[in-house]
C-alpha cells in the first residue's frame, strides 16, 4: 500500500491482559520502526527491523514486550501482561532503505488503553 497501515486504531485491555498491535509498512519498504508516545509527547524508540530481522532493539523493555516482522505478514508488537504504564499511542514507521537521510513514513498509531 501507499501508506503505513496500523490496526487496530484503539485497543482497550484490562491490566494483565495481552495486547497485540499490527503494522503493514508501505510496500517495498525494508525498514520498520516502532515508537511509543506517552501523554501525547515523549516519543520513545522501541525497536527497528530490516525486513524480518531485528536491527535495533535497544528501546524494547526486556520483559513483556516482543515484536516480529515475518514475510508476507504485517509486523506485530505484542505486550504480555499489560500494565497501566503501557497506556500510550504506539506508532509504526517504515522507510525504503535505512539511509540516514531517508524519510520515515508514520502510520496513524494504535491507542492502547490499559484499565
Amino acid at each position, binding site marked *: 500500500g501507499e501508506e*503505513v497501515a496500523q490496526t487496530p486504531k484503539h485497543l482497550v485491555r484490562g491490566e494483565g491482559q495481552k495486547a497485540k498491535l499490527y503494522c503493514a509498512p508501505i510496500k517495498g519498504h525494508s525498514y520498520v520502526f516502532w515508537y511509543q508516545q506517552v501523554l*501525547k509527547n515523549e*516519543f520513545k*524508540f522501541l525497536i527497528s527491523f*530490516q525486513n524480518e530481522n531485528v536491527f535495533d532493539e*535497544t528501546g524494547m523493555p526486556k520483559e513483556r514486550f516482543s515484536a516480529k516482522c515475518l514475510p508476507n505478514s504485517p509486523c506485530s508488537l505484542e505486550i504480555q501482561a499489560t500494565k497501566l504504564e503501557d497506556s500510550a499511542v504506539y506508532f509504526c514507521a517504515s522507510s525504503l532503505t535505512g539511509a*540516514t537521510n531517508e524519510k520515515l513514513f*508514520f502510520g496513524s498509531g494504535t491507542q492502547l488503553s490499559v484499565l
Partner: protein
Amino acid sequence: QKEVEQDPGPLSVPEGAIVSLNCTYSNSAFQYFMWYRQYSRKGPELLMYTYSSGNKEDGRFTAQVDKSSKYISLFIRDSQPSDSATYLCAMRVYSSASKIIFGSGTRLSIRP
C-alpha cells in the same frame, strides 16, 4: 538528562506572527536534524531536515542548526491557523537505519 530537550509549550500566537521553536541536544554524534509536524490523532510527518550547521529555507519555514551550541530552531513566517499542531524536533546519528531521537514536542496554536 534527556538527549534532546524541547519546551512543551503550549505556545499561542496570533495569525501572521513569526514563530520560533527550539531544541537543545547533548549528543555530539547527532548529524542529521529534522522537524516533524504532528496533527491530533495522526502520525508525525517530516517537515524539514538538514545535515549541517546553518540555515535551510523552504517556503515559510526556516530550519537553523548551530552544532557548536548544540541548538536547533524552526522559524515559521506568516503563521496560519493551519500551522496549529505539535512540532517535534528529531535527530539521528549518521549511520544506516539509526533510530530517530525525538524531542517531547511543542504544542503550537495560531489564533485567527
